[in-house]
């Protein structure tokens, strides 16, 4: 886009000097800076699809799910769902483009008056540019959606045509919306004025006209407040708000209406249904639109005074942080908890293989790694698969897997998978895939997308309460954010909707369910927080201080408090950015408490807690049971990176962070290996099998709570791969009472 620089280089002039004009160049840079908000949002919208959708795209693991609008094969009326989704995405993409265009135009046309940045002639070329350039973003977004979705809609007859129709309808809707905004800006005030002047002042019509006029005047008065403080660029010579600002205001109001409609639509038909009818991409676009309007308005006002917008944002963030509601909270309830379940109690539950009563009892312990939804799905698939392959036998020749499993120590995504598996226990038996109201399908539940709920949490409660935390006063509003939205998504079964950690603890005591440790981390101390249904008890005397120094147990930190099982899993799976660091809400929000985050910061393998528990359990026990440690890893580990050619002072400046990040992976793995090896050396009756998910050569790990159909297929194929056979055989042998060697698959 060119900026006119009269009088020396008026646009279109053939006498434009060929040498570099410093003033003209400076004006270009000035306008680029002034338009940074719409330009950055435009870049995000335009570049996100090419950076996320193609195979091996760098942002694919994080953002690809946003562009996947394919309805589930089991969804009723998939063509309608697809068309509706495409229509809504098109509408919101156009709304975002309109916000960019209007904000950029306000800056261009008000640049000289408000910022002294040089005049811009409102020529046909400028008018066309502010419309065509944002359209590129729309084309990129819709192209990305089409590309990502088309391969997964074989079950929708004429899927491509359905998508195209949806896009067309969404575009037509936008045209109506834009016409509505233009009518609000120009026609409505004129008609109201005519009616008032015509003497329509009595009766219902007159009252309505007066009320509408008052509302319109009130809104315009509010919007022109910044203009009254600093009129340049806002008001004309008569002190009236410029028409272009009124048009922007009209479009913003229409968008606000859509924002509320989307909120209601998601609430009624999205969050509460299994199949999100309103696509997650709409929420992401709504968020971008809000940011565009808000930040553009702030920069338009502040840039005149050369106040950087980041300073204003930081100042506002600091100012509102005085409100207690500016934090994230998780809900807890007072509870009367019974006696702690110590390791020795759980050990006593170990059973012998009925046909081999002469052998020591046997128990299975599982450790599940973190790794987002891939870890959740793999954990559920491995545990469900082992239970399926090792069912209850009537002849008593082997233990069932569900029966032998006594404790799961899980981290992050693994905690979610473990939660879905443990939810399927009915009176001590792991019941999978049963029909009827008791139906339990942990793998399906773990694989189901939760991206929608996270996006809803960011676009609504987090955005609104982030800007206005003083509105957060009730318990419900304090505990409503993207984290709680994620919990809501995971309450997919009737039992999980009401499951409390204390209930599951009672189940462990009564042998109805295995114990579980959801591993989390405390921000302030860096210690592991064990949110569990079992207790570790005091460590053996020689190592009491050291051993207990690295972790805290939930019931010690918060005595007499209980939380939902879904909350416990969510706290363990507080993936950075996706979920907020939260603190417990007891009586009031003003109490100082630790913040809880993902367990993967401290130990992403879940082995540290399990090894400690096992150490406590086996210390001083005369009759040792045989223990099988099942490690579930959702990604291959131990691959040696190659040396690099990195050098220079930039590398020297950045290497501490790189080292810290790499040490987290390498350090945790080596500790994990050493812990288990020492345990095995100390206790020869501890055996270990490792089930590792190996993605296909072109596969990539998703970094959002969404799995594409290809990723689900890859998980299923990995479980059925021949490479896992030795580990499956080892588990089978262990449950049959046979000798077992350590196996890695």
């Amino acid at each position, binding site marked *: 886009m*060119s900026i006119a620089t009269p009088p020396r280089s008026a646009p279109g002039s053939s006498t434009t000097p060929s040498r570099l004009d410093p003033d003209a160049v400076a004006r270009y840079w000035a306008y680029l800076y002034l338009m940074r908000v719409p330009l950055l949002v435009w870049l995000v919208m335009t570049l996100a699809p090419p950076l996320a959708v193609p195979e091996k795209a760098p942002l694919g693991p994080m953002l690809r799910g946003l562009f996947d609008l394919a309805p589930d094969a089991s969804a009723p009326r998939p063509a309608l769902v697809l068309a509706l989704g495409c229509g809504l995405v098109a509408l919101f993409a156009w709304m975002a483009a309109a916000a960019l265009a209007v904000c950029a135009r306000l800056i261009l046309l008000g640049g000289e008056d408000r910022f002294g940045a040089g005049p811009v002639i409102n020529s046909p070329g400028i008018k*066309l540019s502010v*419309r065509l350039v944002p359209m590129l973003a729309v084309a990129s977004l819709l192209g990305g959606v089409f590309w990502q979705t088309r391969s997964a809609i074989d079950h929708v007859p004429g899927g491509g045509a359905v998508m195209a129709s949806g896009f067309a309808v969404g575009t037509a809707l936008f045209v109506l919306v834009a016409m509505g*905004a233009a009518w609000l800006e*120009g026609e409505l005030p004129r008609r109201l004025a005519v009616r008032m002047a015509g003497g329509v002042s009595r009766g219902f019509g007159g009252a309505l006209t007066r009320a509408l006029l008052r509302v319109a005047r009130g809104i315009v008065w509010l919007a022109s407040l910044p203009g009254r403080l600093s009129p340049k660029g806002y008001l004309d010579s008569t002190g009236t708000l410029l028409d*272009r600002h009124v048009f922007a205001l009209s479009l913003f109001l229409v968008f606000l209406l859509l924002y509320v409609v989307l909120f209601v639509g998601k609430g009624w038909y999205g969050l509460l249904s299994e199949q999100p009818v309103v696509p997650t991409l709409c929420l992401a676009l709504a968020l971008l639109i809000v940011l565009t309007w808000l930040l553009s308005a702030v920069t338009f006002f502040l840039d005149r005074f050369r106040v950087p917008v980041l300073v204003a944002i930081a100042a506002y963030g600091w100012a509102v942080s005085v409100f207690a509601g500016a934090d994230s909270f998780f809900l807890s309830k007072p509870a009367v908890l019974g006696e702690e379940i110590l390791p020795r109690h759980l050990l006593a539950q170990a059973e012998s293989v009925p046909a081999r009563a002469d052998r020591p009892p046997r128990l299975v312990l599982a450790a599940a790694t973190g790794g987002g939804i891939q870890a959740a799905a793999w954990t559920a698939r491995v545990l469900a698969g082992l239970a399926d392959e090792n069912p209850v036998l009537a002849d008593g020749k082997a233990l069932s897997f569900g029966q032998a499993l006594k404790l799961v120590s899980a981290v992050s995504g693994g905690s979610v998978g473990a939660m879905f598996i443990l939810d399927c226990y009915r009176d001590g038996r792991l019941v999978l895939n049963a029909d009827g109201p008791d139906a339990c399908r942990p793998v399906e539940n773990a694989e189901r997308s939760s991206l929608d709920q996270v996006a809803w949490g960011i676009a609504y409660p987090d955005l609104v309460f982030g800007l206005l935390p003083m509105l957060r006063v009730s318990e419900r509003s304090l505990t409503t954010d993207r984290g709680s939205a994620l919990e809501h998504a995971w309450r997919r079964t009737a039992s999980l909707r009401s499951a409390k950690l204390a209930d599951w603890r009672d189940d462990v005591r009564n042998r109805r369910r295995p114990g579980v440790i959801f591993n989390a981390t405390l921000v302030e101390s860096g210690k592991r927080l064990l949110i569990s249904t079992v207790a570790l008890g005091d460590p053996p005397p020689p190592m009491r201080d050291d051993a207990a120094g690295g972790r805290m147990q939930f019931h010690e930190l918060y005595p007499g408090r209980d939380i939902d099982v879904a909350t416990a899993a969510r706290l363990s799976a507080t993936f950075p950015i996706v979920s907020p660091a939260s603190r417990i809400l007891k009586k009031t929000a003003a109490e100082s408490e630790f913040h809880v985050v993902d367990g993967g910061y401290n130990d992403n393998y879940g082995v540290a807690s399990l090894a400690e528990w096992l150490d406590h359990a086996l210390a001083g026990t005369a009759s040792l049971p045989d223990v099988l440690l099942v490690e579930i890893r959702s990604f291959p580990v131990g691959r040696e990176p190659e040396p690099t050619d990195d050098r220079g002072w930039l590398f020297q400046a950045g290497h501490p962070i790189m080292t810290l990040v790499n040490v987290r992976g390498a350090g945790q793995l080596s500790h994990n290996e050493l812990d288990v090896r020492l345990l095995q050396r100390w206790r020869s009756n501890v055996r270990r099998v490792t089930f590792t998910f190996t993605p296909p050569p072109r596969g990539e790990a998703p970094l959002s709570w969404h799995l594409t159909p290809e990723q689900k297929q890859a998980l299923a194929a990995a479980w059925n791969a021949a490479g896992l056979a030795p580990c499956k055989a080892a588990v089978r042998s262990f449950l049959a009472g046979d000798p077992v060697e350590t196996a890695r698959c």
Partner: protein
Amino acid sequence: MLVVLRTLAVIAGAATVIAAAWTTAAIDRDLFPGKLPGGVSAPILALELGSSEKDVTRVLGAPDEPQRSARQAAIVGSLARDRLFIVAYTAWLVLLGALLVTHGVVRDEPRWRLAGLGAAAVLLAAVAAVCDVNENRQLATLVAAARPDPSLKAWTLWKFGAFYGALGLGSFSFFLEPGRVGVQRWLRRVAGLTGIIAGVVGIAGAVLGWPGGIEGGILFAAVAILSGTVFFATIHWLRDGLLAALDRLGERPVLCWLANWPSDE
């Protein structure tokens, strides 16, 4: 004459860009994990510059490796696609040289040095093409036999030397184009400068046998060819600058409606 040459240059430039993108995208980089000999990132370049059997094994893998045949097939496929690229870039370089010659051979005030530079560029382009064809033939033999041919590297170095020489010389033609404004001026500068930088870096790489220079020059050459093609393609449309061009667009019937809808004016 200049108009004809520029039009042909647009076609040749576009063909070069498309052929290069096709050749690059078609080769599956995942087939070649790990570091390639010489620190280069392109497997074919690694083979071209490889001097020992060990280098060839590092690219293609050991004879018993399951991926070896897939890698060989990928290289052979890439060589087939390279034919189009050779034709396209040779045409582009020859046309740059021809533009220089045309700028030099003006009736009233001939500038023979320019014409000489242009002729040299044309000659070097032809040398590069011949070397490339020969190199590809030897490369096909190498892939089949998995043994390095000592003359392959020589053909490669001659090819790159001639290619970068032709590009460096031909890029001077951008600076001889008549005075332009705005975007055109920037395109001309970018095309000319990156072409000359590519020439210097690439020739240094070819003369010194420095793989980093040869591969680094390719990046500059890509920018030069792309921006040069856009420059020639938009000479008429952007003759008065971008805004003037957009103004003309904005006055066309449909676009005029779009430029004024919705309106608050």
